[in-house]
């Protein structure tokens, strides 16, 4: 087995900082985050390592990795970090960059599409309508579901920001 030295990429690290991870470089690798992570308790995801890779700009180790998507954004690490690293903001910045490179799980595309096309992340089924009626609620909630012009506005936002293209995976 040969070991290949990884080359730090300061440009990528700077991009993470600019994308919202402004506290990234305050990390001194104590591992409080890893020790606090409920997801890491069940998996091999190690928050401290992810932060270190981001500091070094090891883009290839991060962008396509499954670890990046094991964070539930519970903020426990963020709350406990003795250096004030806003870890969830770092992870959000990294996820946004990963998505722009075309890394979005099919299950996530489905949820994103529901939001951009229907304005809601879950659908309204006949059984939901029936129960709503029985409970004395409007059968169809007074949201975008009752207001097509409001749904058009949400769709337009998704088009203006390029979110719809992002879901298709074509955007860089």
């Amino acid at each position, binding site marked *: 087995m040969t070991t290949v030295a990884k080359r730090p990429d300061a440009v990528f690290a700077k991009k993470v900082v600019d994308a*919202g991870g402004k506290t990234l470089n305050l990390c001194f690798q104590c591992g409080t985050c890893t020790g606090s992570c*409920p*997801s890491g*308790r*069940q*998996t091999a995801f190690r928050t401290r390592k992810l932060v270190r890779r981001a500091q070094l700009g090891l883009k290839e180790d991060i962008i396509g990795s499954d670890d990046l*998507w*094991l*964070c*539930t*954004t*519970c*903020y*426990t690490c*963020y*709350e406990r970090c003795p250096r004030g690293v806003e870890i969830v903001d770092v992870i*959000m910045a990294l*996820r*946004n960059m990963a*998505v722009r490179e075309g890394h*979005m*799980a099919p*299950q*996530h595309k*489905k*949820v*994103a599409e529901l*939001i951009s096309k229907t*304005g*809601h*992340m*879950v659908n*309204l*089924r006949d059984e*939901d309508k029936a*129960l*709503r009626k029985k*409970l*004395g*609620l409007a059968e169809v*909630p*007074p*949201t*975008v579901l*009752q*207001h097509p*012009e*409001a*749904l058009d*506005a*949400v769709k*337009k*936002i*998704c088009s*203006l*920001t*390029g*979110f719809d293209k*992002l*879901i298709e995976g074509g955007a860089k």
Partner: protein
Amino acid sequence: MSEKKMGFFLGCIMPMRYPGIESSTRGVLKSLGVELVELKGASCCPAPGVTRSFDQTTWQAIAARNLTIAQNLGVNILTICNGCFDSLFETAHQLNHDPEKLKKINKILKEIGAEYKGETEVRHFVEYLHNEIGLDAIKAKVKENGGKPLKAAVHYGCHFLKPSNVKKIDNSERPVIFDEIVEALGVESVEYKDKGSCCGAGGGVRARTPDVALKMTRENLVNMKAAGVDVIIDCCPFCHLQYDVGQVELKKEFEIPVLHLSQLMGLRFGLDKEKLGLEVHRTPVKL
């Protein structure tokens, strides 16, 4: 602006999957003298775990459009969901304090004929009950013999209190306000191991890796069961779904009923049980 008249933000999971939470919330707030105004044309908050993970600008622009609906009605927003609270509160917080960000988002909103003025406040049901309504007013509504003594596992979830440097509601490691409301209802809130732990569903984890989400849920359920609880009380429909449906996915290894705080209040206030929508809970509610 009267804080007894609030714009009721529905979100997605409550109105579509647990409408009983919606009818309970409307019922208990009515009996507490709160007027709820419909935010017509509101959309998904949008869900922070997924939308914010994909594109933060889209996340804030959609959230800001929702804020403008309340703004144009002259009301602040009330939500019973931690996810909606996170998207709406965080967006309001950033846009209300950062003129540059506000300008950026308003550039997008202008294209749909909207403008956010940066003044709307967003409040979470638990914080609102505790700080606006007060424990005494809640206690006064509890019916004597409102049910058998109950031991509850209170689940705060993550985005109600955290990040605490933004939310500034209660201590995120040792919070009390949710427990105090539950106790005011005459229900015992018990300590259990890792009480502050995440339900497992957030951040897009339930959608992408449901098995990992379920492992986190299971660990919490083991700890709740060890404490001998009769019921789990949550303040978020997504946590609610994760515990309720999660127990079915865990092959009924546990059978701890799951109630949203609004439903527990409905029970203790003596609201018509038929209006609490408990029959759609996948883990049977036998209390």
